[in-house]
């Protein structure tokens, strides 16, 4: 499946609506980061990655590791919309016995490659998968989506060093740089700056984009997919809560529920397109 940039924009906003409705039914969820990373996840699943919902384990598939596991509220609707399972299951999110909870379980969610939630775990796993694919001369690629606050974790940098040592040009990291962590604006908690220099110093090729501009997202992911002898990271500048104007950029919206009136207003706006 290769949607155009315009189709992807529309798709991302459709999935944002699924996220917000799902979280509304559940009574809560990690809205902020799920919405900020939605354009990246939509581009990956509807254009960039070689995947087949009918054969989720096909050997030459590309891998997606959601290192920031709490963005499951965004990830699960992406997988549903892409056809890995029935969208009718989404309202079970966080309900007793549901396959979907706040953090994804690879053994319960078709298409999910890693059970994540404890931050800093996904990039090391992605490095291991990328090494294994290289060992098998398998041309598949590994995409690893990290939260910005997640990169406070030391294992992210241990893995970053390892990835460049092993010249893993089949590994593409994406930092969802919405500049909010749970306790506040990230530069007031622990700043990541100079973020590009940090990743470059760890041996990565760095591409900086507006992560909520679909044309830039697609261009960068396609660029990053061309192997250049080292791992690539996309620093994706995003807005926390992107698509719901009333909460955009507000760190308090790491987790929450919109409430029916705000949800209705947001859905109407999203149907008109979040990028204007």
């Amino acid at each position: 499946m290769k949607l155009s940039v315009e189709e992807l924009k529309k798709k991302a906003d459709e999935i944002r609506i699924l996220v917000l409705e799902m979280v509304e039914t559940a009574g809560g969820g990690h809205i902020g980061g799920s919405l900020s990373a939605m354009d990246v996840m939509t581009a990956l699943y509807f254009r960039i990655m070689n995947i087949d919902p009918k054969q989720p384990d096909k050997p030459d598939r590309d891998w997606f590791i959601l290192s920031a596991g709490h963005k499951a509220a965004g990830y699960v609707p992406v997988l549903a919309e892409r056809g890995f399972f029935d969208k009718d299951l989404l309202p079970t999110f966080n309900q007793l016995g549901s396959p979907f909870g706040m953090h994804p379980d690879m053994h319960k969610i078709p298409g999910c490659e890693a059970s994540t939630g404890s931050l800093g775990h996904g990039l090391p796993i992605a490095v291991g998968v990328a090494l294994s694919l290289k060992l098998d001369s398998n041309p598949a690629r590994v995409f690893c989506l990290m939260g910005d606050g997640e990169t406070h974790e030391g294992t992210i940098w241990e893995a970053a060093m390892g990835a460049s040592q092993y010249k893993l040009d089949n590994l593409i990291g994406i930092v969802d740089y919405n500049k909010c962590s749970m306790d506040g604006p990230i530069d007031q908690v622990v700043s990541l700056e100079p973020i590009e220099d940090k990743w470059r110093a760890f041996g990565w090729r760095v591409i900086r984009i507006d992560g909520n501009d679909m044309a830039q997202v697609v261009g960068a992911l396609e660029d990053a997919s061309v192997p250049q002898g080292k791992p690539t990271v996309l620093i994706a500048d995003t807005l926390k809560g992107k698509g719901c104007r009333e909460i955009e950029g507000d760190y308090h919206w790491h987790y929450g529920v919109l409430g029916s009136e705000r949800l209705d207003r947001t859905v109407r706006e999203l149907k008109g397109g979040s990028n204007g």
Partner: protein
Amino acid sequence: MAKDMRDIYTDTLLDLAKTNPSICVIEADLMNATGTRAFKEAYPDRFFDVGVAEANMVGIASGLSAEGKIPFAATFGTFASRRVYDQFFLSANYARLNVKLVGTDPGITAVYNGGTHMPFEDIGMMRLIPDLVIIEPCDLVSLEKLVRQAADHYGCVYIRLHRKGSHTLYDADESIELGKAKVLRDGSDVTLIASGFVLVPEALKAAELLEAQGVSTAVIDMHTIKPLDEELVAAYAQKTGAIVTCENHQVFGGLGSAVADSLTGGRPVPMERVGSWNKFGQVGNLEYLQEAYGMTAREISARALKVIERK
């Protein structure tokens, strides 16, 4: 030159790798301590050294496993437990992957590395991970056989590996089966249940001391601590009516606790435990440390006499 336990570990992996292209070795800058350099030389593509980054090592091992490899990751037991616990718990075990984690230098065998490197708590931590298999081989023969079975078993395994020095307690053709404890000698008055390179031989020596005093003593090598051979434990609890556990570990959470946990659900009998009693590690040679923590045949036999009185 005689082979160390670590050499047998590496030789076994080399042999497995000949026919199984999925076998990988992953190290955190301790290749020369673990003795896996020979694997790197034979299979450079399947050997990964991640540097001094143990948690990352276990995360990478999990990724290798997710894509179908069988990684054997090793580091000192303190790091293989405390340092990497979250990664091993979630990335490997919760994910139901196939990671073999090796913790070397168990308990007092860390000797002069001292308290920072002396794992008395690794078994206790590992026992809390659902479905994990925990093994602690006591000699060259059981080490080779158990490493082969660990490779064949789909699922995570923690291998408590004695590194330097070696001895042989079993004949080369002895059958050693994961999850099935071995009765090394039979007896009717008391059962010594031991694990590992240091305490299994001490338990055998203790049995000699006890037999000299007319105490009929059974000795069991509990090489698989999880899943525990509960059937054999129950049978010997009934047969001898008294148990002494012997471990190079804290008495809390380890083999002694595992045996007690098992008997609690059936027919408990008086027990005594030999091991470290709520103490941190320290610097010393093996003999000194065995005395310091009471991990000697003398202490085992004293505990045996005491437990018999409690019957």
